[in-house]
């Protein structure tokens, strides 16, 4: 999911930083000072999720938790994901510092969209609706993220269109796993701590 250094043109890098900058600024504005600790905890969970390997057929993949983080944090997903990606770039060299803007935009935008589109439905009393919305939030968050990664590549070099399409197709199994995991996680949180699904700015 991370774009590495060297792939993106300066115009794509600038667009990534512009979206990430606007999102982080808006997210920080929506985040009260007394909620920083809670957001940092969720950011740590997002950071650690990339280190959990889950079996997928003969291979394995790691969770991205874009959907659940979006449902829990709402608009504050932008600063939380920016921070987690900055730490991943510095500590493990995942992604990079120059592409941090594009990576934040391609992961935090789907997280916020998941919150805006499916947030209310996941809290619904209708269990079937909540289940479908939870799966869709996890599945579509990953697919939207893959779409944005492909978009950044195609924007940098139009000849990479087939590469972008392949990246999108490769993410389908991961998106299904993410959808199922989000569904189970939402059901767990509905029972254990329903307030968490209201978004951190409403807690």
């Amino acid at each position, binding site marked *: 999911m991370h774009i*590495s*250094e*060297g792939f*993106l*043109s300066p115009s794509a*890098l600038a667009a990534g930083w512009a979206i990430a900058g606007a999102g*982080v600024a808006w997210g920080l504005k929506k*985040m009260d*000072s*007394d909620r*920083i*600790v*809670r957001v*940092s*905890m*969720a*950011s*740590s*969970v997002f*950071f*650690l*999720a990339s*280190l*959990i390997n*889950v*079996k997928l057929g003969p291979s394995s993949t790691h*969770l991205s*938790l874009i959907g*659940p983080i979006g449902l*829990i944090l709402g608009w504050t997903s932008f*600063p*939380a994901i920016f*921070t*987690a990606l*900055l*730490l991943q770039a*510095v*500590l*493990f*060299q995942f992604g*990079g*510092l*120059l592409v941090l803007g594009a990576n934040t935009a391609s992961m935090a935008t789907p997280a916020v969209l998941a919150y805006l589109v499916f947030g209310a439905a996941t809290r619904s009393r209708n269990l079937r609706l909540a289940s479908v919305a939870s799966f869709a939030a996890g599945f579509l968050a990953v697919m939207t993220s893959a779409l944005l990664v492909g978009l950044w590549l195609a924007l940098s070099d139009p*000849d*990479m269109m*087939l*590469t972008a399409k*392949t990246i999108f197709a490769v993410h389908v199994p991961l998106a299904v*796993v993410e959808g*199922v*995991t*989000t*569904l*189970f*996680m939402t059901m*767990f*949180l509905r029972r*254990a*701590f329903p307030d*968490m699904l209201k978004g951190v700015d409403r807690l």
Partner: protein
Amino acid sequence: MILDSVRIFEECACKSRLDAVDPRCRVICAFCLAVTIAALDSVHALAAGSVLPLLLLCIDGRRSMPRIFRMLAGVNKVSVLVLFFLPLTYPGDRVLVFFSADGMKMAILIIWKLNIISIPLLKMAASMGITGINDALAALHFPVKLRMLLLLTMRYVFLLADRMATMGRALCLRSPRMKGMQTYKAYACMVGTTLVHSSDRAERAALAIGCRGGMSGFSRPDRQVWTWREWALCAIFFLNSACLAAISITRMSL
């Protein structure tokens, strides 16, 4: 694994000749060089662009080489994928039925760029450590909330890593041969439990921070001094960027 990497990183921070330089200058110079290299797309320009990163690599001599090469090895994990994947999907004349010659050239160019962009960023920005990066962000007037978030996230990574490891061990002991949906449900509940625990913990941590006087006393970065040395370093990096841009434009017009 997480804690080891973090420990290595923290130990290696602040052991460079570059530590005498103002963090703002380090970040500005590193990003200036990285952006310029990202814009280059010819072999000649990239060859010229590699000079300064290679000089930076030699700054601390052998002392810093193993750490930087270890970091570059981490960066280059993606290179194998690029070398295989890009020639398969890139347009152009096919070599050995499947592989595109243009794709191969593009892959080599991207891996080259990846390395020479990473050297200044790792050497000048990432190697400052989290406290150094916090100082640089403070000096560059980044919002206090963002810096607090960075420091607290770093702090809670350790805490939650321990908790997740404990729960992972318990999960393996409870049901070592999980399959299909059972696995995903178990992992989802594990992450969910971590989130609930972290929320409880956050509540108490916020109260404790409040008792200590709130966020105001949390992080006071050192006062930075911008001297002729920083001006000189900026001048070298900007001049280098201007030369690279000139080479690139000249090659394009030929």
